[in-house]
């Protein structure tokens, strides 16, 4: 597998393969991140599609200072925030819209979650937005706390607290869920 540095270099210089390799390497990871942030498979799919379409269009001006995964994760977070802003403004938007997981009859067309992943997605959805972002960016995208602090426009101490509180809440939620499950 090519290193990201090489993929960025090849992509910038017009390689079709590089675009496909980047997509294949990161599509499901970004979908997981978006799914964790939105808990809505259809919206997550739209967000990730937008991110990659925008990424492909950026080829001529492509300048990524940091890691590719960090760049794509930041793009997902920004699009998710945009999506939520739009939702908030839609007066009649049903609450379930952000909570549903789309079921599809054709698994080839679907976003598929294991039972455990479904359970985790539900628990993540109960976290406050900032805590959810920190937990997912750290654990699913591997972004450093100081960079998350930069993305959230806050101090690193606040980010660390959000991470700790987020994990604690997840632990208590999941303990309850698992008890229910085992009953």
């Amino acid at each position, binding site marked *: 597998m*090519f290193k990201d*540095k*090489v993929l960025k*270099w090849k992509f*910038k*210089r*017009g390689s*079709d393969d590089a*675009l496909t390799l980047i*997509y294949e390497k990161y*599509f499901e990871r970004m*979908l997981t991140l978006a*799914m964790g942030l939105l808990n809505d498979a259809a919206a*997550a*799919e739209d967000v990730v*599609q937008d991110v*990659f*379409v*925008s*990424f*492909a*269009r*950026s*080829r*001529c*001006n*492509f*300048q990524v*200072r*940091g*890691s590719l995964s*960090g760049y794509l994760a930041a793009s997902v977070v*920004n699009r998710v925030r*945009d999506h939520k*802003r*739009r939702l908030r*403004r839609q007066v009649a938007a049903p609450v379930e819209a952000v909570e549903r997981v789309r079921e*599809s009859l054709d698994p080839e*067309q*679907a*976003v*598929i*979650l*294991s039972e*455990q*992943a479904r*359970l985790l*997605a539900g628990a993540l959805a109960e976290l406050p937005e900032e805590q959810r972002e920190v937990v997912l960016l750290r*654990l*699913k995208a591997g972004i450093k706390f100081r*960079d998350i602090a*930069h993305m*959230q*426009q806050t101090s690193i101490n606040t980010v660390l607290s959000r991470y700790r509180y987020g*994990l604690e809440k*997840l632990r208590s939620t*999941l303990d309850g869920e*698992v008890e229910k*499950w*085992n009953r």
Partner: protein
Amino acid sequence: MEPIRNIEEAIKNRFSVTAGRALQDRVLGRVRQADEQSRATLSASQEPVLRRILMRSSNRKWAVAATVIIAVGTGLVSIWHDGGSKAYAFSQTVEAMQGKRSFHIQTYFQQRRHDEFWAEFDKQGNLVRFRQEEDGGPKGPLITIWDNGILHRYYPAPRNLRLYARQPNTEHSIEGLEGIDPETIVQEIDALVKAGQAVLETDPLARYAKLMTLRVTHQQKDLEQVLVVNPITKFVVRVDDYRGRRKGEVTHHGMEVLEYNEAMDPKLFVPDFPQDAVLMDQVTREVGMAQGDKTGKEVAVKVVRQALEAWAQGDNAKAGLLFGGVAPEWFTKSAGLRPVRIVSVGEAQEHREWAPYWVPCQYEVEHDGRRSTITGDLAIRSVGGQPGRWYVSVLSYYMGQGPRRIAE
């Protein structure tokens, strides 16, 4: 079901989504379509180009190296020097380059001098500070100094502006610098050669030369690279890229390392810009407009409208903040551009050069009692170090697509 004891491990390893094959293919199809459309609209002049070349020596040494380049033939990837007593492998260069602490680089375009860089790194190889001087027109170079997250940039006349901004360097590399970092260049070549996408050859006479010359032929691109390596230090000291040889239209980009791991003069990193340059201060105060609940396109349009309205009302302090912290004297100097009536502010456009959004606008100005119309696009950029805030760049007025007076 087993209780989930380690939450971090569970999220990291057990929370994952699988996409059906058809879904993956469908999205990839759209991504490729977007890529093709984007390429179709990309003019030849905007094609990304390589800026590479290295060498650590005087012009005289360069001339010597150039002679060697002409004499380059085909050979082995592993070459011999010191009378053939010790094998050289490109991996030695890849390894040696990881010991960089500083460099001073001159880049070339079509054999002419282009940009000059000075950069310093810490022991871990993280960028600490750099200075760049690039062609800024007849009034002197455009100078950029970046030091531990603070950016100073001088735009020579007719702009005569100096930008003071925060620019965090989260991954210790700065935009533009990565492409000329010799360490990155050799790593990329090494990866391509190992992947069978490039062939590395050497001059069969290299063992007798003071500098070794390597030629890299790319399999999937009309690109040849010539590298000059110091056989003692194993450092790459020069790289020349020749694109388009197969078509007979050669474009040359080069890079020469003038100094490597030498102590740098601290004055290089002190901004000594002309005092009459108008300051754009994005460090000591909050500038631009907060995005809030708006989308990027929405905030772009709103900041343009408010900036033009503030300027029209003569509120130069407010306009200055919305125009990225530019000092009020810029509005005095640019009185001929001051709006008296805003005709239209269009929809923001994405995916163009230099700024994430461009907003077309049209407004009227008044001069000697006569009105005329200004039309063009204003660039909207994010404020460095002030996440979620956007500003209208006054530099738009000096760009080709920027606002211009319509001929009467």
